[in-house]
């Protein structure tokens, strides 16, 4: 009777002894006699190939025993009914379309029980990592890392975990995400996404698995779109920048009609003649994102919602600092020392501080449904970020979206909001 294949690490590589002769070696692994040798990060691929072929194996790379069924769940936060079965059915690989962060924590606990070892949990940034660590600390030992850190350390970190969880992959840089997923040896891989962008679907399917469940999203807060006219000088500056950009973009479209804005950006970066147009586009975005009229409207909104928990999502750091100086609201930016940033986020979570301002780190650094009021001041990086920002606000709260009138922000606001929310949005012209 042939012995089961034996998987082990040797001198930084993964070795498999007794690989079945009729089973082709996975891509990236070389055969030397009856032994397969490959990079350690490909352990998961070997295990997946053996599992698919229904061949029993002995994995000596870590001491993990996978039980046939889960003995018990954490009574405090059970995963949604049927989800554990669904995940088991697909070999604990796949993407969940889900907006509820409590489910993510429940699945982390589930995988911890399953693998009897802490899972590796990847989040988009350090603020989100701080938030998830503090939420998990009491219940589940998990290794929570930002995607930037994980991508740099995955060559050694990746082989220490049998379960990998990816929170909000749609908000992670695709190159870093691919690098981290490729280097990780974990066999159980679950992603939590609010949506699957069409261009990412194939990559996610190969590295995380297919979409296995779409869970009902919790009700979203009321969204009010406020159209703000620009001051005369800012409008002039915007017009000048926009026409510089548009002249070049028009020529580009005439020459390459099928190529999109992304191709234009890529080309303009490397072309000294087109670079002024690129700078002009950034200038136009900056002019529309923050100006005096928006500042006075934010002032008004803060007065109107005094005493409630408010999040100000700013277009950039300069705007966050300006608001912080004007209203003595803590600004949460990547420049701040990490301890100070964490203290401010904790103070907001426990209600000591009632308002925060920041460009990026509030998107994941504040727990879901914590704020009463959200103000999207301008700028932003697409629909995924907008959705993440809206999720910080309670379902009975309100999100104000400040849109500079007659600028590119009007189109962006329309494109980035989901269709259902679009219908429900209240638009105020001023």
């Amino acid at each position: 009777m042939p012995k089961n294949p034996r998987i082990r690490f040797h001198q930084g590589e993964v070795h498999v002894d007794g690989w079945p002769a009729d089973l082709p070696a996975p891509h990236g692994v070389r055969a030397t006699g009856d032994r397969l040798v490959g990079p350690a990060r490909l352990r998961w691929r070997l295990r997946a190939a053996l599992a698919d072929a229904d061949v029993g194996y002995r994995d000596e790379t870590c001491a993990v025993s996978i039980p046939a069924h889960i003995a018990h769940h954490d009574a405090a936060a059970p995963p949604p009914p049927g989800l554990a079965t669904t995940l088991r059915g697909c070999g604990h690989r796949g993407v969940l379309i889900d907006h509820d962060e409590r489910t993510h924590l429940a699945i982390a606990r589930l995988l911890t029980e399953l693998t009897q070892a802490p899972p590796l949990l990847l989040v988009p940034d350090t603020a989100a990592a701080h938030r998830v660590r503090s939420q998990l600390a009491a219940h589940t030992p998990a290794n929570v890392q930002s995607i930037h850190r994980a991508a740099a350390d995955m060559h050694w970190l990746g082989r220490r975990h049998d379960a990998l969880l990816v929170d909000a992959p749609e908000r992670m840089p695709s190159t870093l995400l691919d690098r981290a997923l490729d280097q990780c040896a974990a066999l159980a891989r679950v992603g939590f996404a609010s949506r699957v962008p069409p261009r990412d679907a194939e990559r996610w399917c190969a590295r995380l698995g297919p979409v296995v469940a779409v869970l009902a999203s919790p009700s979203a807060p009321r969204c009010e779109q406020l159209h703000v006219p620009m001051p005369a000088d800012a409008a002039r500056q915007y017009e000048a920048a926009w026409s510089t950009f548009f002249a070049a973009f028009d020529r580009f479209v005439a020459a390459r009609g099928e190529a999109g804005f992304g191709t234009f950006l890529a080309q303009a970066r490397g072309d000294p003649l087109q670079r002024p147009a690129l700078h002009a586009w950034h200038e136009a975005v900056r002019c529309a994102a923050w100006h005096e009229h928006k500042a006075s409207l934010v002032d008004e909104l803060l007065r109107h919602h005094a005493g409630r928990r408010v999040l100000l999502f700013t277009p950039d750091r300069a705007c966050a600092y300006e608001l912080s100086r004007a209203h003595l609201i803590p600004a949460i930016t990547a420049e701040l020392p990490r301890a100070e940033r964490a203290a401010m986020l904790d103070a907001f979570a426990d209600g000591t501080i009632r308002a925060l301002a920041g460009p990026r780190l509030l998107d994941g650094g504040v727990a879901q449904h914590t704020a009463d009021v959200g103000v999207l001041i301008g700028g932003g990086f697409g629909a995924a970020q907008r959705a993440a920002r809206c999720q910080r606000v309670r379902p009975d709260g309100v999100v104000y979206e400040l849109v500079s009138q007659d600028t590119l922000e009007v189109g962006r606001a329309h494109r980035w909001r989901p269709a259902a929310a679009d219908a429900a949005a209240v638009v105020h012209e001023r």
Partner: protein
Amino acid sequence: MPIDGVRQLPTRLLSFTSADGELVPRWLGDRDRPWLRDLLEHAQALDGQPFAMWQRRWANGEADPRAGSKRQRIAVHVLGRWLRDRSKPKDLSHVRRELFAQQAAGVDRERALRAAAERHGTTAELLARGLYDDLPERRPIRWPATPLDPGALAAAANLALAQGMLHHAEHVRIDVRGGSRALLRTAWLLGMRVELQPRGADATRATWRSDPTQPRQRAPTSLVALLPWTNRYRLRARCTIARSRGDLVLATGDPLQPGPEPRRYDSALERRFAREFTATHPDWKLLREPCAVATAHGVAFPDFSLQAPGGEPWLCEIAGLRDPSALAAKRALLTAHPRVVLCVPRAAIDDALRADRRVVPFARRVDPLAVAAAIERASR
């Protein structure tokens, strides 16, 4: 004025060519002085401006055609780091915490600012304006009173480049001779293996190998700044940088900026002996801290190597004996090495030492003639 606190370059800025299995760094040199001078002038013009201005200028600007994109980015990176590090203002995080807490407690903005300003000896307006001025990119640039030389910037950039390349090393071997104590001590502290030569005449070798089981292990990049202080060195490191694999070779004469100067002499006694010996024996070769010698008491670094024309090098140890218990270690050195001259205070010499021809007694100063005579006597 040297640029201190140089740190390794990130991988994306490493500039080298691959030839004959070696990774040859593209050093900055005298031909780069014109554009480096312009770069320094530009930085000086930003004196007092926030550091973000410097970054914005170089993020959007085009490369100087004399420099080439990568070399300019290296110089900008090194100068930027230095400017940012040297203008470190007072930490304001406690002021911010105080103000935000007051605002959350319902205190009026103006009142909170006035109270905090009084406590910190400034005005409310200045406090509000500079609330974030301690953050790295908001710090105002402070240009030094002494102008920077383009050559110093080039040497600092070369040091950062060498350190950046060495960061990717899997195996490092350093052969060093003369003035090596600071380097070897640092190497030992970094966990390198130091191979001592039994005769003490050859170079001392320190080796380091990366350990895949130690993920946080770092290559000994801090040694690069100490190399120029040695008399002769040769560093060979096996590196894999991105897709390039080869040996990085650094040797005596490479245009590296030396780090902070290690102490040249341990005592005034040694300094005086070196001066007088050179004056009285101009044709002899005197070398400071030539090598390390293994003894029964551990590792010893004899103070000098003295070599007569056409003769063998002799090691010379001057024992000031401020701590009398150190005499045992000096005896061990005498036993471990056949060509050592030991200078000992006359009062500390016992019968055993007096019988050894290699021991030179001294009172207040070490007589160079007596040392030379002892060497000649013992060589016979």
